[in-house]
């Protein structure tokens, strides 16, 4: 079943395919340039059926495929590596076995509710890749890291200083959010959205809003949409600035690190000016935004934006003019475009490999022009490219916010959706958060409540990219490579 973004479609419209056809259809579409946006289990009569959402960047089409409930099916991963983590996730959540999957390790160490007789694994305790040999050694890090960072466990298989493989084992942050969205929406739903990944409050909030608006056929007032998009770009600016500073810090370049630490806060304070919370809590709601901007606030935003632009670009210029910094950035942590395509990278790491993937272009929100924020691409694929793409995106975001504030349409900021959702529908919300594409998919049950709500944070696609980027690198470059991806632990663990 194909449909455009921002249109809810009846679940009954998707044919329920036998495993062989389901697999063939997915592989054929991936061969034709579609990407796997989500793969999840949907409880239905007779068991749990797999659902797959695919998207095509060229024209923003979506495809929703269903498989008959089955205890096992032929794994997609050997022919479609971007499915590898989704299949592990479905296996952990529902006990459905993808036959032929290379290694069905736990994703979040929750145990499988469908197999209660099996004990819940201890977090991080599983078989890992191992390198054997006289001079091979293993470095294990985490879950508690050295800084103020979320928890995760990393295992480096090293030969001397060189990393042959990095294995990333997560799940420590699992809060069980998806399970608690079932039966919603309720009074906690929007707050869960804002804390799926707290540094992406606007991104996830907007994806959820788009999904509910599609379900309820709510037309968002232009002014509300514009304010939400301004907040989305402010979120990108704050985090991209922080990332440039952190990358500078990881190669010991203090000036940019110190400046960016402060400038990041200046961008957060602009979001605070809009809605009272530096992370944008309470701003985006289905149907628009909860806060309007008056003329003095717009003037203050514009003047502070200009000051912050100068400070941010000054700090970034130092970074990109420093030969010692560039020597560390260039050629480090490379991912080829071919690998990025295979494993399904999204966001700045994909664009740094030259892949034109940006949900603002492929799946623009209604009322948002696909061309009003230019896409930034680079093709070196390494730390340097990921830094440069961020720097260029900051410029694009600043220009967009400036123009949006000056040309803010008149009118209301929110048209609250009617309460109650239609039953038996599928809807999708897609936005480009600062880390990359955020995908929310919901299926409503006969009672008009969420029967399934799948959240795919860009980190879910990209963590494996970090593991690949580290192959053949020195272990001392891990912090730098890690910051150049800066992925979310809780967004992955949910």
């Amino acid at each position, binding site marked *: 079943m194909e449909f455009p973004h921002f249109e809810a479609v009846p679940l009954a419209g998707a044919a329920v395919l036998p495993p062989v056809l389901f697999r063939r259809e997915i592989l054929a579409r991936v061969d034709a340039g579609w990407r796997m946006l989500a793969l999840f289990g949907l409880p239905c009569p007779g068991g749990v059926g797999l659902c797959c959402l695919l998207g095509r960047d060229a024209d923003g089409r979506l495809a929703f495929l269903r498989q008959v409930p089955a205890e096992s099916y032929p794994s997609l991963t050997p022919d479609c590596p971007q499915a590898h983590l989704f299949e592990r996730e479905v296996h952990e959540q529902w006990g459905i076995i993808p036959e032929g999957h290379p290694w069905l390790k736990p994703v979040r160490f929750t145990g499988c509710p469908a197999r209660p007789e099996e004990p819940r694994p201890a977090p991080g305790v599983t078989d890992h890749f191992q390198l054997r040999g006289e001079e091979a050694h293993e470095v294990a890090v985490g879950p508690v890291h050295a800084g103020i960072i979320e928890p995760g466990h990393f295992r480096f298989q090293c030969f001397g200083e060189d990393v042959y493989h990095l294995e990333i084992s997560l799940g420590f942050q699992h809060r069980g959010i998806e399970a608690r969205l079932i039966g919603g929406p309720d009074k906690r739903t929007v707050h869960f959205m804002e804390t799926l990944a*707290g540094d992406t409050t606007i991104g996830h909030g907007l994806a959820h809003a788009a999904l509910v608006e599609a379900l309820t056929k709510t037309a968002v007032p232009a002014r509300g949409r514009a304010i939400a998009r301004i907040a989305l770009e402010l979120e990108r600016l704050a985090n991209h600035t922080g990332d440039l500073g952190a990358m500078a810090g990881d190669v010991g370049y203090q000036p940019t690190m110190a400046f960016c*630490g402060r400038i990041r806060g200046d961008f957060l304070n602009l979001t605070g000016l809009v809605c009272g919370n530096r992370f944008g809590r309470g701003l985006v709601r289905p149907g628009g935004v909860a806060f309007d901007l008056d003329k003095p606030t717009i003037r203050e935003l514009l003047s502070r934006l200009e000051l912050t632009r100068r400070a941010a670009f000054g700090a970034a210029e*130092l970074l990109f003019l420093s030969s010692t910094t560039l020597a560390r950035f260039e050629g480090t942590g490379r991912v080829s475009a071919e690998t990025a395509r295979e494993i399904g990278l999204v966001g700045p790491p994909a664009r740094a490999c030259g892949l034109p993937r940006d949900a603002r272009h492929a799946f623009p929100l209604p009322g948002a022009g696909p061309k009003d924020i230019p896409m930034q691409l680079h093709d070196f694929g390494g730390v340097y490219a990921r830094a440069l793409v961020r720097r260029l995106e900051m410029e694009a975001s600043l220009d967009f916010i400036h123009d949006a504030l000056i040309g803010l349409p008149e009118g209301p900021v929110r048209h609250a959706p009617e309460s109650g959702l239609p039953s038996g529908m599928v809807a999708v919300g897609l936005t480009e958060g600062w880390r990359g594409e955020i995908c929310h998919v919901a299926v409503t049950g006969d009672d008009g409540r969420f029967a399934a709500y799948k959240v795919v944070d860009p980190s879910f696609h990209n963590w494996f990219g970090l593991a690949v980027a580290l192959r053949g690198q020195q272990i001392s470059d891990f912090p730098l490579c890690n910051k150049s991806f800066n992925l979310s632990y809780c967004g992955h663990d949910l």
Partner: protein
Amino acid sequence: MLNILLERLRQGKRTVAFPAAMPPLSPRFRGLPVLAESPCAEGCASCAGACPTGALGADEDGLYLDLGRCILCGTCADACPGRRISFSRDHRLASSTRDGLVLRPGGRQPHVAPLEPARLKLFAKSLRLRQVSAGGCNACEADTNVLTTIVFDLGRFGIDFVASPRHADGVAVTGPVTRNMLAATVGTFAAVPDPRVGIAIGTCAISGGLFAGSPETTGGATPHLPVDLYIPGCPPHPLTILDGLLRLLGQQTPPPAA
């Protein structure tokens, strides 16, 4: 080199004057909730019904708001037909007791008492903390981390975050302490030599916050380690955290700007 110095001049001195003066907060900042003393309409439970985290309610002493469960979303202020609930711009939310977070109409504000003399003597001039994120959404983490930037310059107060619990005087927990982080959280605290301090940063770490009741979380740090300082918020503003830390060490902090 010259370009670095020139840029340094352009960037200017950016450290806030706090605690000598109070930096401006957003006019829309939602700080300490205020409960008016006017009576509730009979049988009205609009606020409790609207609150996403069950922070509001009424008992035999009347209306209360538990700041340890509140995420300061402001929903109750709009839901109350009598407009009894409002949010001030007071950033001082921290408390040294869990009970002190329960607000009543006309009641006491949250209060931070300095550490008792034995620990105060040890830590007043140098406090090293190990931060543990245990299900935090990276907002509390980010606004704790920002204290180490040039804006707040935490080091000037003798406070710093260190990499090892063996080097630390205490642990600052963020997040609702997920089942999968419980062992690591408790283990990290155990690795800090006594005497030590425990700090819960953010509503999740105090009570589980939005995630309280989820089988995958365990009610924050409060059930698992002795907490000396509770800092509510979702996330707490950096100044809310700094204010709490400084008062715990016996320092004076400024009231909110008028």
